[in-house]
C-alpha cells in the first residue's frame, strides 16, 4: 500500500469526524492535508455536509412540557439513590482521593521515622531494666564438684539449697559453675555443708 493509499484510507474512515469538527491534533492535520489534495475525499466531505444540514430538523410532535409534566410525579416516588452508595464504588474519585492523601501522609511519616538521626551512643541501660528471659543479677560465681556417685536428684537439691543456679559446666574435671545473687562466700559455705560436695570455691568477687 502506497503512502497515498494509506492516507486516503485514513481520511475516508475519519471524514465523518472531520465534518462534525471533533477530529483533533495530528490526526486532524493529516486528514486535512489529504483532503486538500484528494478530489474524491472533497466530494465525499461535501456530501456529508449536505446530509448533515438536511437532517438537523427537530422531531415533530414532541412536547417537552407535556412530557416533563408526566415525569415530575415519578421523581418523588423514586428519589435519587443516596450519595453514600456512590462512595463505595471502586472508581469513585471522592473517596479515592482522600484515601490516596492519607496513604501519602503515612508514607511520609514512616520515611521521616526511618531517616531520623539515631543517637551515636546508646543510652545506658538502667540497672532495673532486664529482659524477660534474662537471669537475675549475679553477684559472683562459685565452682563446685560432687562425688561421682551423687544422684542427679541430689545435685539439683544441693544447688537449690545453696541459693545458686548452674551457669556453666561441666568443666573438663567434672566441676560446675554456680551463680547467685548472694555473695560467693555465703554460697560456698552452704555447699561445704553438703556431704556430696567435694569442692566449693568462690570465683571472682568475694
Amino acid at each position, binding site marked *: 500500500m502506497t503512502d497515498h493509499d494509506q492516507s486516503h484510507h485514513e481520511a475516508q474512515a475519519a471524514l465523518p469526524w472531520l465534518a462534525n*469538527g471533533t477530529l483533533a491534533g495530528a490526526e486532524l492535520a493529516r486528514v486535512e492535508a489529504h483532503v486538500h489534495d484528494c478530489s474524491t475525499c472533497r466530494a465525499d466531505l*461535501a456530501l*456529508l455536509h449536505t446530509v448533515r444540514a438536511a437532517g438537523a430538523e427537530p422531531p415533530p410532535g*414532541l412536547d417537552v412540557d407535556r*412530557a416533563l409534566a408526566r*415525569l415530575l410525579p415519578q421523581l418523588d416516588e423514586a428519589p*435519587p*439513590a443516596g450519595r453514600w452508595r456512590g462512595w463505595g*464504588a471502586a472508581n469513585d474519585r471522592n473517596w479515592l482521593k482522600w484515601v490516596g492523601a492519607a496513604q501519602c501522609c503515612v508514607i511520609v511519616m514512616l520515611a521521616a521515622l526511618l531517616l531520623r538521626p539515631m543517637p551515636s551512643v546508646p543510652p545506658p541501660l538502667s540497672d532495673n531494666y532486664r529482659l524477660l528471659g534474662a537471669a537475675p543479677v549475679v553477684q559472683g560465681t562459685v565452682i563446685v564438684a560432687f562425688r561421682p556417685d551423687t544422684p542427679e536428684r541430689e545435685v539439683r537439691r544441693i544447688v537449690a539449697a545453696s541459693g545458686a543456679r548452674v551457669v556453666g559446666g561441666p568443666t573438663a574435671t567434672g566441676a560446675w559453675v554456680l551463680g547467685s545473687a548472694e555473695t560467693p562466700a555465703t554460697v560456698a559455705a552452704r555447699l561445704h555443708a553438703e556431704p556430696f560436695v567435694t569442692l566449693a570455691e568462690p570465683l571472682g568477687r568475694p
Partner: protein
Amino acid sequence: MDRRTDDTLNLARTPEGEACLVGRIANGDKRAFEALYRAYFPRLGRFLQRMTRSTQLIEEIVNDTLLIVWRKAATFNGTSKVSTWVFAIAYRRACNALRALDEPVDSNNEEREGGDSDRPEWQFERLRLAAAVDAALAVLPLAQRTAFQLAFYHDMSYVEIAEIMDCPVNTTKTRLFHARKRLALLLEDQLEGRP
C-alpha cells in the same frame, strides 16, 4: 423566571455545567433536573426519531432515560461526558423498548412531505432533502444509523460513539464508512445538480 433559574438553565450549555447539574441532581435538586431535562429532551428526541416513528414512544424513552439519570446521578463519576452517559442510557433503553414492542423502524417522510407544499421553494427543497435523508437512513441497519446520527446530528467523536454503543472505535469507523457509502448511493438522485 428568577435569576437562580436562569443560572441553572445556563449550566446546561457546557459539559462542565452539565456535570455540575448532575451533581446537584444527586442531592435531589429538581430545579437542576428540569434544566438538564429541557436541554436533553430535543437532543434525545432527534436521536430517537431515527429509531422509531412513534412520538409517544420517543417521549416514553426520553422520560425513562432521564428518570434513570435522576435515580443514578450519584453514580456518575465524571470519567466521561454527561452527554455520553445520557446517550448510552437512551440507546440501551431504546433498543430494549424496540425489542419488546417489535416496533417496525422507518421514517415518517410521507407525513412530512404532505404539509410543506405551501412553503417557499428553498424551504421546500430543504425539507424534501431532509425527508430523502430520513428515508435513506431508515433503510440502514440500526447500528449504522445510530452511529451516523450520533456523528452528524449530535457532533460526537468516534470515542464517544464507541462508548455509547459499547463497541471498539474501529467498529464505529467501519459502521460509519459503510453507512455513508450506502447513503451516497441512496441519495444519488436527490443530490444530482447540487454543488
